[in-house]
């Protein structure tokens, strides 16, 4: 069956279905049309009071033509979105071992707290006297973050990890300019194993990116850094624990070398979950580090956001934190929203977002931190690391470890050497995991490892869950080695969709629904 845009929609003709159904549905898996194929222009799911007749003051700027939107009644809308939800895999569905993403349990208490009217229903610009409790919450979260990281300051407002990274690098740039070195210090060192956001962030604000080679053991060596250091270097951006899942053993020496060279140490905090309560990045000598509240502190990933990326700052950078920030004034808390009000000591580099940041995420993160406490957060990190190493121990005889010398931190990294000559790729293997009921691990990242498979189970998994996961992966690994390629090359077989044609999507981008052509025209 083709839809009225000439696209196949029906499952009925599916070649792979053993028992085709009339509707294309498979019991609980219900096919769902696009909103624009089922909605109607004259339908609404809300009852709105009719406006009183007034003399319009729109200045003659009224819309002349219909927008083209469609509506659904409430029952139809609820069913539409519930059916869509059933095509998604979430943490609540099962183990979600996405390396570097920290897909841990999202406590529902956090959701409840964020929806308290005193947090969820306050306006960012209502009088500060009416939001003292909100400012208190932000202050308290800031204190928790500073204690856990051993730092002097934190810029709370960045909206996501990459945004925090941007704010941190802006603080570094401002500090360099304040020393009159803006014209000379233009190079940022980024290890080859770094997240893509690191070089993208540095380049965005005009730095030149220079790669730091990774050693054969997956770590960055201080000697390699020192070779690159000079009066032109502004900073290094280093992830620690790094993207190979290893704690950089020479991080303290690297930090010292940067400071000695008059440069700064930006730490990508994506992997902070491995060391919360175990080590303080400030003690290691970092100058700035963003914290993904949606990774380490359990705020939901929400299908790709919203996140939150507060960035902690060392004493050397504290003065350059952007507005807004909170200051105590007698018994009251005060939001400083303008550089001119910042006081003599502060030299804010500017503003990175309207308003004050991701309050909804702050509430959730603090709710998580209060729940766990200092003892629980330390235990959580230990469990996260324990779980990753348990998986590694359970798979290392079948799958290959690129860096066996170092213990893994909260994620275990495998390469694809063990798949050599099997005809199965990392991608195929990951897609076969979907059929086993798992979300794939992070694949082909970090780039320094061939066919990388980065597995991060987090502390949220029970031993039984890990055991089943290990057994399932062992079974798949043995099948791959036995040459059962079909199980892999065609996978997934049991998901709501088979493998999707991404090349086609990119070659001829269809980025929105368009109204169908009149039938006559389409037939011509």
């Amino acid at each position, binding site marked *: 069956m083709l*839809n009225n845009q000439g*696209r196949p929609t029906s499952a009925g003709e*599916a070649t792979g279905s053993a028992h085709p159904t009339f509707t294309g549905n498979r019991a609980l898996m219900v096919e769902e049309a696009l*909103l624009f194929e089922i909605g109607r222009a*004259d339908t*609404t*799911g*809300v009852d*709105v009071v*009719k406006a009183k007749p*007034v003399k319009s003051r*729109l200045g003659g700027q009224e819309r002349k033509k219909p927008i083209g*939107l469609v509506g659904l009644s409430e029952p139809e809308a609820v069913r539409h*979105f*519930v059916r869509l*939800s059933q*095509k*998604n895999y979430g*943490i609540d569905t099962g183990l979600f071992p996405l390396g570097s993403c920290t*897909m841990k349990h999202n406590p529902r208490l956090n959701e*409840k707290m964020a929806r308290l009217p005193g*947090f969820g229903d*306050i306006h960012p610009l209502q009088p500060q006297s009416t939001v003292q*409790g909100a400012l208190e919450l932000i202050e308290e979260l800031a204190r928790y973050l500073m*204690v*856990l990281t051993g730092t002097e300051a934190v810029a709370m407002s960045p*909206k996501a990890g*990459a945004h925090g990274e*941007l704010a941190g690098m*802006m603080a570094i740039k401002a500090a360099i300019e304040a020393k009159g070195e803006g014209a000379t210090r233009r190079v940022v060192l980024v290890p080859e194993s770094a997240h893509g956001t690191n070089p993208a962030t540095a*380049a*965005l*604000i005009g730095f030149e990116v220079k790669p730091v080679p990774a050693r054969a053991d997956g770590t960055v060596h201080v000697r390699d850094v020192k070779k690159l250091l000079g009066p032109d270097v502004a900073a290094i951006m280093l992830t620690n624990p790094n993207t190979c899942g*290893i*704690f950089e053993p020479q991080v303290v020496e690297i930090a010292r070398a940067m400071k000695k060279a008059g440069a700064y140490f930006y730490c990508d905090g994506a992997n902070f979950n491995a060391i919360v309560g175990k080590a*303080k990045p400030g003690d290691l000598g970092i100058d700035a580090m963003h914290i993904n509240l949606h990774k380490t502190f359990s705020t939901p*990933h929400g*299908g*790709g956001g*919203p996140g939150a990326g507060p960035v902690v700052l060392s004493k050397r950078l504290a003065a350059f934190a952007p507005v807004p920030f909170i200051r105590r004034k007698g018994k009251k808390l005060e939001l400083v929203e303008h550089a001119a009000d910042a006081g003599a000591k502060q030299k804010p580099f*500017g*503003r*990175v977002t*309207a*308003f004050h940041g991701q*309050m909804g*995420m702050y*509430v959730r993160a603090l709710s998580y931190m209060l729940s766990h406490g*200092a003892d629980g957060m330390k235990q959580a990190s230990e469990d996260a690391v*324990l779980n990753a190493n348990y998986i590694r121990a359970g798979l290392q005889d079948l799958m290959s470890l690129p860096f066996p010398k*170092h*213990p893994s931190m909260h994620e275990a990294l495998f390469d694809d050497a063990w798949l050599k000559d099997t005809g199965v790729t990392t991608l195929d293997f990951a897609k076969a995991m979907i059929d086993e009921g798992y979300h794939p691990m992070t694949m082909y990242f970090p780039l320094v490892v061939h066919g990388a498979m980065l597995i991060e189970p987090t*502390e*949220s998994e029970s*031993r039984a869950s890990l055991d089943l996961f290990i057994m399932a992966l062992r079974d798949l690994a043995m099948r791959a080695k036995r040459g059962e390629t079909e199980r892999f090359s065609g996978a997934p077989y049991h998901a709501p969709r*088979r*493998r*999707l044609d991404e090349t086609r999507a*990119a070659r001829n981008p269809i*980025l929105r629904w368009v109204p169908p052509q009149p039938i006559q025209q389409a037939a011509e």
Partner: protein
Amino acid sequence: MRYLPLSAEDRGAMLAKIGVKSVDDLFSDIPADKLLKEPVALSHHASELSVERTLGAMAAKNIPASSVPFFVGAGAYKHHVPASVDHLIQRSEFLTSYTPYQPEIAQGTLQYLFEFQTQVALLTGMEVANASMYDGSTGTGEAVLMAHRVTKRRKAVLSGGLHPQYADVVRTLSEMAGDTVVSAKPDVTATEDLAKLIDAETSCIVVQSPDVFGNIRDLRPLAAAAQAKGALLIAVFTEAMSLGLIESPGAQGADIVVGEGQSIGNGLNFGGPYVGLFAAKQKYVRQMPGRLCGETVDAEGKRGFVLTLSTREQHIRRDKATSNICTNSGLCCLAFTIHMTLLGEKGLRATAELNHANAVELAEMLEAVKGVKVLTSAFFNEFTLKLPGNAAEIIEKMAKKGVLAGVPVSRLLPGAGLDDLLIVANTEINTDQDRAAFVAALKGAL
């Protein structure tokens, strides 16, 4: 510790399997003198009940919008969101899923993103929209960078009606990137001549409508002026609801449209998380920042959706990417999409009409107050008042009377000599009683 499934026995058995004696053996790469021996100096773990008490006490110190007559806007708006929206976005499969990089098990997210992109494109009158930005302000900063890429010029001109905090975000990003920004003076009554600031180096002009003071601006002459000089028109909005009633920026010739989508589906949340809407002409799509969802087919020919054109993005292009962005505002997009689906064209228009009618009614009531002047002639649901006194002091007095009256311009533009101006928003939530309370409290405070 209710979030941790492992027992002490589990931990012991697992350490044995790994072949180490204690968990600290796994942390052996951390220099011994940096490894913390004791938990950090923060509170001990706490029960749900205890956390609810602690956070509940903080929440109780704030005055929620729904508890008082509420007229605060200037970039974030209190609207009624149907109960089903919040129910649906809390479905586990939406709430706890990741960026849909594995499309076979993320069709739910991908399909709603496709629907979202379509709704945003229609609403803004543009050909394509992305899968959202962090918020309107960061989206505006990214729009300026995009215009620089398209025009290969590096100077932006900002209207004096652009939200001052949006302008600050653009200026910060541009200064850091080494680009030039020309900012027009605050333009309370929409009388500026922006066209004369456009020259051969100008990549874009950034104009907000309705602007921060509430003025609906005619974008057509600005689009023509920009085009004549080879510059782009970036149209900004902070009140998405307004697009239900006023002409779309696309129909007026905008090249890029960016705005805040919070009004649809999302609560006030003290400023975030919100959802940035971002749309453009088709010909610029490969210069757009952020994620894009596109239609394709699976191995059996069934329609499906994937993230696409990712060769623009940081995880592929690294330092050559169009943006460093790695996140969108997924769940807030979903809230937007669901609310917009419930509204439909009919409900959106009716709600927008109610907003406008309520605002007109309040304006008429205030025009009858001695010494008070409504400065905004063409507006949607928000306008600027000139008061016979300091607006910040007056709203504090009104707050004590239980009315949250608006945003003093001095809060956004201190030192601009506009201390007697107040920005007042009036949405569908405001009743006749609310408006009467506003007028009474204002009279009492003057």
